[in-house]
């Protein structure tokens, strides 16, 4: 059996197990065991991958598997699997966030079992997306991930959750219409060996007509870009994150946004180079604006979750910007930023969820001096903040520097200007991060009731420590990860 299909199979088994275990303890046990298996699987996969590469296997995708799913006159859909270094990193990231997501949802109420089931379904969609090499199957899994999102926010969220759930669902579905249009455009305009195909690897070698590229590129980039919060299609993200339950915010910001970026480079950039060449400049402008715009919006927010939602917009636009730069250094940086942003944002949302769970407010003006009351959470928040503002030694720095150095390789004035615009974000990020830290953690205690609150529990500590280790690990020893990404970028010149 192909190891990759296990990534989807294990969550399916988890779903079955959940169905038979109504007890909260059993539900937690299934969650921990299942997500641990996924975590171990992804690490095993990493080592298998290195073993294969060391053995001299230079194929672009490893562990490939191909089965015809649906074939008719004009339709040719495969369930084809395969991973390279980048997808393995995405799988690892997903596993880490799923693992920590279980721990932060330990005391989920109400309907914990249903919550975990939907979360697992969401995970199936994400895992499936990252292991396939068939565009249609990819799209299929993407849609699977979208539906649970709606319910998870609508049922278990807080604040104006129905509105937010509807907004997220509609905007992302609208985006997927764009994606699907683009996919069909590519599919029907190209034949490989006398047959249409959705296979990425085959399409990458085929010649997609320039006329199609010109409209398919914006379609797909807008579609996947919306998922990555491309300005001005980002507005689902602040409300969505603000209202979603903690684990869903973590999953959404940490993984689903990467799904968008992954789609952008795997499909839009890799398959449609001519489209990127001719209309990419629009998206360079939009993403660069998004970097600064998101950061500035974050500066004047009052809700902790909104600060980090806008911060996430800013960081994700930087990913898209780097993807559009399309050279090895910037692309490596983009993937590193995907991983870094995923772990860091998950850490942020986990911490905010824990603070909110205790104080029942996320409003900056109602919080203060928490460092003294909950030092563990406080230190965690500061580490996440420092990672976000790009402190060397934490993950954000290496990713951003990669992106900046890569972007500077383009010497034309146009790119220079927008690169410099992106670089300004390092200052604005510092402003909103320190503003939140100074207000929430430092200073005198504002509400005397907060003095009775407790620091993180054991299960919460597990989640925080795992994520901090991730952030610091990438930041201190980025070499292996960048080498791995770089080696996978055979399609970038």
């Amino acid at each position, binding site marked *: 059996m192909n190891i990759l299909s296990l990534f989807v199979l294990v969550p399916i088994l988890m779903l079955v197990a959940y169905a038979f275990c109504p007890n909260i303890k059993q539900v937690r046990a299934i969650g921990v065991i299942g997500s641990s298996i996924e975590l171990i699987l992804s690490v095993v996969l990493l080592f298998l991958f290195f073993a294969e590469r060391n053995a001299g296997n230079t194929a672009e995708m490893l562990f490939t598997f191909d089965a015809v799913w649906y074939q008719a006159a004009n339709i040719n859909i495969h369930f084809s699997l395969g991973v390279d270094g980048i997808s393995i990193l995405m799988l690892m990231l997903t596993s880490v966030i799923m693992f920590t997501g279980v721990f932060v949802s330990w005391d989920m109420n109400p309907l914990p079992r249903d919550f975990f089931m939907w979360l697992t379904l969401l995970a199936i969609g994400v895992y499936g997306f990252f292991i396939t090499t068939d565009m249609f199957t990819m799209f299929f899994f993407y849609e699977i991930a979208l539906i649970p999102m709606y319910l998870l926010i609508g049922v278990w969220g807080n604040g104006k959750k129905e509105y937010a759930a*509807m*907004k997220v*669902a*509609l*905007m992302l*579905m609208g985006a997927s*219409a764009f994606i*699907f*249009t683009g996919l*069909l*455009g590519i599919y*029907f*305009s190209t034949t490989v060996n006398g047959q249409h195909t959705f296979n990425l690897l085959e399409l990458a070698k085929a010649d997609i007509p320039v006329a199609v590229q010109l409209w398919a590129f914006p379609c797909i980039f807008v579609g996947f870009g919306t998922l990555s919060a491309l300005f*001005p299609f980002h*507005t*689902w993200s602040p*409300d969505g994150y603000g209202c979603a339950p903690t684990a869903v915010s973590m999953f959404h910001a940490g993984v689903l946004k990467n799904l968008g970026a992954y789609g952008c480079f795997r499909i839009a950039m890799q398959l449609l180079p001519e489209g990127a060449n001719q209309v990419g400049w629009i998206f360079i402008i939009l993403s660069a604006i998004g970097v600064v*715009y998101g950061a*500035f*919006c974050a*500066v*004047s*927010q009052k809700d902790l979750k909104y600060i980090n939602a806008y911060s996430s917009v800013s960081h994700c636009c930087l990913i898209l910007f780097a993807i559009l730069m399309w050279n090895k*250094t910037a692309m490596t940086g983009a993937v590193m930023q995907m991983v870094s942003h995923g772990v860091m944002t998950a850490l942020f949302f986990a911490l905010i969820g824990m603070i909110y769970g205790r104080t029942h407010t996320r409003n900056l003006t109602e919080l203060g*001096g928490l*460092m*003294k009351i909950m030092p563990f959470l406080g230190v965690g928040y500061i580490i996440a903040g*420092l990672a976000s*503002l*790009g*402190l*060397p*030694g934490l993950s954000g*720095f*290496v990713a951003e*520097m*990669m992106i*900046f*150095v*890569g972007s*500077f*390789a383009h*010497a034309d004035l146009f790119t220079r200007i927008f690169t*410099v615009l992106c*670089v*300004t974000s*390092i*200052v604005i990020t*510092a402003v909103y991060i*320190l*503003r939140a830290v*100074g207000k929430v953690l*430092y*200073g*005198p205690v504002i509400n005397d009731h907060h003095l009775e609150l407790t620091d993180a529990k054991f299960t919460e500590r597990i989640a925080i420590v795992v994520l901090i280790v991730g952030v610091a690990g990438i930041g201190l020893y*980025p*070499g292996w990860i*960048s*080498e791995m990404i*770089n080696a996978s970028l055979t399609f970038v010149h």
Partner: protein
Amino acid sequence: MLTFNYSIWILVLPAVMFLVLGLGGKYMKPVVSGVLGTITMAITTVLAYLTAYQYFFSVGKAADGTYKAIEAFNFEWLRFTDTLHIDLGMYIDAISSMMLIVITTVSLMVHIYSLGYMKGEKGFQRYYAFLSLFSFSMLGLVVATNIFQMYIFWELVGVSSFLLIGFYYTKPSAVAASKKAFIVTRFADFFFLIGILLLSYFTKTFDFGTLTAVGAPCFSSFAGASFLGISAISWTMFLIFMGGVGKSALLPFHVWLPDAMEGPTPVSALIHAATMVVAGVFLIARLFPIYLFQTPEVLHLIGYIGAITAIFAAVVACTQTDIKRVLAFSTISQIAYMITALSVSGYDGHDGLGYMASMFHLFTHAFFKALLFLGAGAIIHAVHSNEMDDMGGLWKKMPIANWTFLIACLAIAGIFPFSGFFSKDEILAAALHHDIVLFSILFIAAGLTAFYMFRLYFRIFHYENKQYHHAPHDAGPSMSIPLIFLAVVTVVAGWLIPFDTLITADGKAFESHIDPLVAGLSIGIALVGIVGAYVFYFKKNEKPDQVATSLGWFYRATHNKFYFDEIWMFATRSIIFKCVSKPMAWIDVNVIDGFMNGLAYVSHQASEAIKGFQSGRIQQYALIYLVGALVLIVTFCGWLVAFITK
């Protein structure tokens, strides 16, 4: 180089100590963590001295008598492209060896001093953890083998400074100051980073060895590149210098340093007087050959920025009443001296006097300024106030503080034979030979320096006999020993160490001598300043107030630090926050999001009119969406089929 293998421990030990104290501190008794941190720093100091000794007196000198840089070790940390990669390593040359000595010595003194000063403070372990983090970062900065390593540690010292300024994190003013320090320096680092990116784009290297080689070929790629009529290399080097402007608190980025005095006083001594704030000077010194040979016009500009800062800060220092703020402005002024000294330097032999003088002044200043701060700490510890008005007549009550402070004041004022005299004299001599305007500015600043330092001294130790609640007295040995040690260094450093044979721009020894004209002038103006301070402040009298009144608006402007804080506040709060950030957030909610909501509303109304669904909103939206999407897709598919089949 085998011989320097042990030097890696200079970096490893403080880093390990940071982790040990940071993670395990709360399980330790405070005193254990303090002693542990101090012992580690002592070992680091010994290793640093060993490294410097070995470099200067055994292996550093090449056969032709020049000091050559040695890469003790260097490994690749992160690869960007085939040519660009961040390495981490140790670059041992004359200035980094000197900096190793400065940093470890002052840091050790601060470690010892803090055992007494911070005793009983909440978060004692955290304090020592941060001190270790800072020492590690600062040491890493000076031994950087390439500009990106420097930038990494540059950011790390920034964050250590942020954490230490905000050590008393329940105090709003400390929190505000820490934020300000970080953000202002970050703003400067933005320019620094762009500069690094430009430099590396053109030269294809980060490596200091390659960049600073005389006649380095890597600069040829800059040829012809320009932006807004100024050559690319000038932009690059100016932007890099901007990083130094931020860290070294030169105009107009100096605003964070006086506020940074909110941190514990030993921290001010270590970070905001002796080490971190001279990083900008060190940066220019490190890249000196590039500035001198490639962009002399930028170097010239740097000199003027430095000189203006020097006199500006000296004027402001005359009117401040918080003793730490006086010292802070004095630091700004003295660092500006060092920067200016670099701009009036050549490369070979005696022509490179300015470079040597700058490094010399950096060295002596580190010790006497640390001494001043630690002395101020002892005074604040004794009288529980930072304000001059709460002090006076302490000379009898605190003899050790009195004498050590006096020595430091004499040194900074430039009185023979204290260390500051020698280094300042060299700077003035270099300035006189290169640029008479710069010389005049520095010369006046020297007089002001003597004036405000002795104003400070007299106000604290003489002036009037105050009544104190608790009789102030000298602190215990852990605080007095560092004071005495630093006082001894301050007395001897000027004439004991042959800087002109050790630390020069081109690595070759030359003969510098005291220019009797410059020496006479500088001692003369220092004495004028001291006498002026004596007249005004030795005994309490009305003269200072009268002069202040007669100066009118000028006095008020000076007292308010020429309103730089207000200007910055206006720019950030009223322009950036109110006119950029707030409107953007408003647009996001009302325009962009409003558009999306409007879209949803319109389609909802349309569906209402067309289909008249009665069920819940969810299905409605989903159906509208689905129908819309299907129509879209079918249309496109039809079009596509037509497109393909034609």
